[in-house]
């Protein structure tokens, strides 16, 4: 923040008498690169410092630390369950709404954005208050709530994918060739939704792997919770584990951004970004 403070106002600096001495546009170029450089330093310096702080050896000892395997195993299991339920629930719903109930699209958009708006710490209070006995204390409850938490990302990714398709035409073509509902979904819509499905999956997985609030308050030692608990024993190992968690998540997120961009170039629309949330809203359509 302090690094950025010097870069001045919002617009390019008012160039007055200097015009003619330096080429036109020179000011704004310098200004732009100064801002971007300062930003890059602010964002990369902590990562570099954390790498140095942890030291290379800490990365090796992360794996052997007690609780590492079990917590990572739990997180991965939660990620798989969450993703499977998310796709099984959200894909048919999104397709159905697009085809049969387009009037409800706005409503669904509104409902699925709610988990972003409602603080997870409040949601888990309510969940623990009403959860039925057979779910309480099981990781299933957590997985079901993660489906809710992932909804803003998963629904938006699927919605963007469906918008890019001429869904009506391909479904009509499919049914006129004699395909049923299941067959249409599995053999016509799914293959056309690969990028959207991938981004819905990756966003759900990234969300689950990084979620701390609900897991810790529901007393489950997922990977992020373990990082925190373990920091009492070894700060260095926790920093190393944090970096590992980050790099893995970033790697996944990079993949969908790159794939999404490529796909949108191919189809000429329905861009899939990490924050499709923001895009659809600010577009104001």
């Amino acid at each position: 923040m302090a690094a950025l403070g010097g870069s001045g106002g919002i617009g390019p600096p008012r160039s007055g008498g200097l015009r003619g001495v330096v080429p036109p546009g020179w000011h704004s170029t310098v200004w732009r690169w100064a801002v971007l450089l300062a930003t890059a330093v602010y964002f990369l310096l902590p990562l570099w410092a954390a790498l140095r702080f942890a030291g290379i050896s800490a990365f090796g000892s992360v794996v052997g630390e007690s609780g590492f395997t079990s917590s990572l195993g739990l997180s991965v299991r939660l990620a798989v369950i969450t993703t499977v339920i998310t796709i099984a629930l959200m894909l048919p719903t999104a397709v159905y709404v697009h085809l049969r109930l387009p009037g409800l699209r706005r409503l669904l958009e509104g409902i699925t954005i709610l988990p972003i708006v409602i603080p997870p710490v409040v949601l888990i209070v309510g969940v623990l208050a009403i959860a039925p006995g057979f779910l309480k204390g099981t990781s299933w409850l957590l997985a079901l709530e993660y489906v809710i938490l992932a909804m803003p990302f998963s629904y938006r990714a699927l919605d963007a994918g469906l918008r890019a398709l001429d869904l009506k035409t391909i479904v009509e073509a499919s049914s006129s060739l004699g395909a049923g509902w299941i067959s249409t979904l599995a053999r016509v819509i799914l293959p056309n939704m690969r990028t959207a499905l991938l981004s819905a999956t990756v966003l759900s997985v990234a969300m689950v792997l990084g979620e701390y609030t609900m897991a810790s308050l529901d007393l489950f030692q997922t990977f992020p919770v373990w990082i925190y608990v373990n920091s009492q024993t070894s700060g260095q190992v926790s920093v190393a584990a944090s970096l590992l968690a980050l790099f893995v998540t970033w790697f996944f997120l990079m993949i969908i951004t790159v794939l999404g961009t490529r796909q949108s170039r191919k189809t000429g629309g329905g861009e899939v970004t990490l924050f499709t949330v923001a895009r659809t809203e600010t577009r104001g359509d």
Partner: protein
Amino acid sequence: MGSTVAAPGSLADPGALSPPGPSGPSRVTLALRWLRKISGIVPFAVFVTFGLLLPMVAVAAGAFQNNDGGFTFSNVSAATHGIYLKGFWQSIILSVISAVIPGILGLIVAYAIFTAKRAQVLRQVAITAAGVFANFGGVPLAFIFIATIGSSGLVSQWLTSLGFDPYAHGFTLYSLTGVIFVYLYFQIPLMVLVILPALEGLRPAWREAAANLGARTFDYWRYVAGPVLLPSFLGCVLLLFGSALSAYATTEALTNGTIPLTSIQIGSFLNGNVIAGQENIGKALGLGMVVIIAIAMVFYVVLQRRSAKWLR
């Protein structure tokens, strides 16, 4: 439009195929038809009801219940007095600061990215990076900052060896200031992502028109671009406000829950760090947070409407 979309029998439930008889649509068949049409979203509706709506109803109802289930205002009253009131104030102040500062910085960065027209690669990299960093918060972020500028962090040690020990000058990462500093790390990229589409809505023609009418750069920003961007900017800042208000993990990991923020206080009710029998105060606090966010969202929607007028 809905009824004309699907070919007969294609997407309706296989079991519910109506015989193609010419029977006039009585009220019963209309209701049946409507039910059948709705049936496709029943699983989703059930899931959201049990996973999202009922828990929130439970929070709202619990806020007004005593331990025996009777009606009471005492939870709400407790939640709006003493340490809990202070918690709300601290939360709101923290969220406002960590919405406005990243809002302004994010706008500057977004503008720098936006004007880099000739550098398409740079744009792509910056936008991707913003997407990635905006998704990054919670425990790992807290630890990375502890390693950087915590009491024994690398940058702190540098500064100390340069003769400026930040911890001797009142700075500490484990405080409200520290939390705000860490929040910048995901709030700035979030701002960049949400404000970029608005910047892209600024038409070059407006700038040219302003220049033709004799406007300097400052005039253009003061009278054209500024007013057009303002609703979007404020809307985005509100979004950041909500994001900061509900953040829990970062603060918890950074401060061990010692800072009295509302989200931390709610968490402590679940952690069992409070006197038994007061659990419903946590629900009253939760209700309070939801109310604050609801107010912010109403403003957000209004601002979005205004900005949509110009930016399409």
